[in-house]
C-alpha cells in the first residue's frame, strides 16, 4: 500500500514536471525570442514579470493565484462555468502555478543564448532571402542547443523541487495533487522518517544525475567549438 502510494506520488511529480517543461519550452522560447529582438518600451516590464518568481516567495504567487481563480471571483466563476476549469485542488491548477513559477528558469537561458549569437548570422540568412520563421528554426534554435537543454533541465528539476505554490494551490491531496516534495513534508509531520527519506533520496539522486548530465553534455558541446 505504502509502495503503491510512493510510485503514484513519484509518477504525479514527474507528470507535472514533464507537462510544465513542454509548455514552457514552447512558451519560454517565444518569450525569449521576443525579448532578444524587441526594442519596445514594454520590454523591461515583461522582463520584470518573467523574473518576479525568482525573488517572490512562492506563497505570494500561490496566494494571488488562489484569489484570482477563486469561485468568489469573476475569473474563477467564468472558467468554472464555461470550461469546467478549477485552479484549486486540481492537476491543471498545479500546472498553471508551476508554469508561472518556473518561467524565468526557461526564459533566461534561452534569452542569453540568443543574445550571445552573433547578429551577423541572422543578417547573413536574411540576405540569403530566408524568412524569419525559417531563420528561427534553421539557424537560431540549432545554434543555441546548450541553452535549450539548460532551460529544459533546470525547469524540469525546479518543478520537481517546487513546494510552496503546489502546497497552496494543490492542497496536498493524495494521488491528485500530492507531489514528492509535499509527501516528504507530510511524512516528516507524522514522524515517518523512513518513508520521508525514500522520497528525499529519490529526489536528491535524480536531481544530481540530471544536473550532472547537463554539465557533461554542455562541456562536450563547447569542446566541439560551438559557441
Amino acid at each position, binding site marked *: 500500500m505504502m509502495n503503491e502510494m510512493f510510485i503514484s506520488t513519484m509518477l504525479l511529480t514527474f507528470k507535472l514536471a514533464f507537462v510544465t517543461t513542454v509548455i514552457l519550452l514552447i512558451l519560454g522560447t517565444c518569450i525569449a525570442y521576443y525579448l532578444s529582438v524587441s526594442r519596445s518600451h514594454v520590454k523591461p516590464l515583461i522582463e520584470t514579470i518573467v523574473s518576479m518568481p525568482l525573488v517572490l516567495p512562492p506563497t505570494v504567487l500561490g496566494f494571488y493565484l488562489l484569489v484570482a481563480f477563486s469561485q468568489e471571483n469573476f475569473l474563477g466563476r467564468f472558467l468554472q462555468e464555461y470550461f469546467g476549469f478549477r485552479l484549486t485542488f486540481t492537476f491543471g491548477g498545479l500546472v498553471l502555478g508551476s508554469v508561472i513559477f518556473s518561467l524565468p528558469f526557461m526564459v533566461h537561458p534561452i534569452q542569453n543564448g540568443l543574445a550571445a549569437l552573433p547578429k551577423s548570422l541572422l543578417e*547573413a540568412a*536574411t*540576405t540569403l*532571402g530566408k524568412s524569419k520563421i525559417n531563420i528561427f528554426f534553421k539557424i537560431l534554435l540549432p*545554434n543555441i542547443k546548450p541553452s535549450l537543454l539548460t532551460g529544459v533541465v533546470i525547469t524540469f528539476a525546479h518543478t520537481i523541487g517546487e513546494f510552496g505554490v503546489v502546497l497552496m494551490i494543490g492542497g496536498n491531496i493524495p494521488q491528485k495533487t500530492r507531489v514528492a516534495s509535499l509527501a516528504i513534508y507530510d511524512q516528516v509531520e507524522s514522524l515517518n522518517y523512513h518513508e520521508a527519506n525514500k522520497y528525499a533520496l529519490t529526489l536528491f539522486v535524480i536531481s544530481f544525475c540530471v544536473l550532472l548530465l547537463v554539465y557533461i553534455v554542455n562541456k562536450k558541446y563547447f569542446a566541439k567549438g560551438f*559557441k
Partner: protein
Amino acid sequence: MIHIDIVKPLNLASGLMDLEVNIKIKDGAFIAFYGQSGAGKTTLLRILSGLEIAKKGKIEVGGEVWFNSSTKINKPAQKRGVGFVFQDFALFPNMTVKENLLYALKKGDTKTYVDEVMEVVGLSELHTRYPHQLSGGQKQRVALARAVVCKPKILLLDEPLSALDAQMRSKLQDKLLEIHKLFGMTTVLVSHDVGEIFKLCSDVVWIENGHIKSQGTPKQIFFKHKTSAAFEFIGELLEITQNEMIYILVLHVGHEVIKTIATKDEIVGLNIGDRVRVITKSFHPIIEKL
C-alpha cells in the same frame, strides 16, 4: 546601373554626423568604398543590402526602385538578392561547409551548382567540415562561396580579407578576381587597403566623414600628382638627434622604421609626432624581387 542617393544619420564615437552619398555604379563594375574606419563605408554597404534603412533618399538597381523614402518603398533585404560577405564570415556553426552552401541555394537550382562553386573556390575537399574546423582563409572562402551560390546581382564584401595574413590575402584576392570574371556580378568592396584596391577594383569611392571626398579610378584617386621619377611616402617623425653639423631623423614609414639625415634649415618647425612627406628623387631606386 546602381544609383544610390541617400542620407542617414550616423551615431559615432566622434559624435553625430550625416552619411550623405550620391553615387552611380556601372553594371559589372568592381568598385571599392575606401576610407578610414567610421567614415560610413560599411553603413553604406548595409543600406544597399537592406540590412539598414536610410532616412531619406532612393536606391535604384537596374531600373528597379529598391528604396524611396518619398513614396515609402523599401524592398526588404530578403528580396534584394544581394550576396553579402561579412567581416566575421557569419558561417552557420550548425551546418557543414556544404550545408552552408545548400542553405543559400535558391529554390529550383540544382544541387550540382553547389559542387561547381565549391570547385571554383577550392572547397571540394572540405565540404564535410564544420566552420569551427576551418582556418580563417578557409572560412573566408566558404563565406564567399555562400554569397555567390545564390547568384546575386550584386556582391557586397565588407572588409572580407582584413582578418587574414598577407599571403592568404593575396591568394584570396586572386580568387575574388577570378570569381568576378567568371560570374560578372557587380561587386562592391569595403576596404582601407590601397594595395588591395589597386589589385582588384576598377573604381574607387573615397568616403570621409560620411561624405564622398573623391571618386575615380584607383590611379586617379591615389596618385595625387603626375607620375614622376620621385618616390613619395607619408611617415611619422619619431626622433631628432643632432650629430655634429647634421641632424638624424628617425621616421616611421609604412611598416618600417628608417633613419635619414637633415640639415639645420630642414628641421625648422618639425616636431616629434609630426606627419611628414618623404621624397627621394636624386637617384634611381633599385627594385629586387623577394
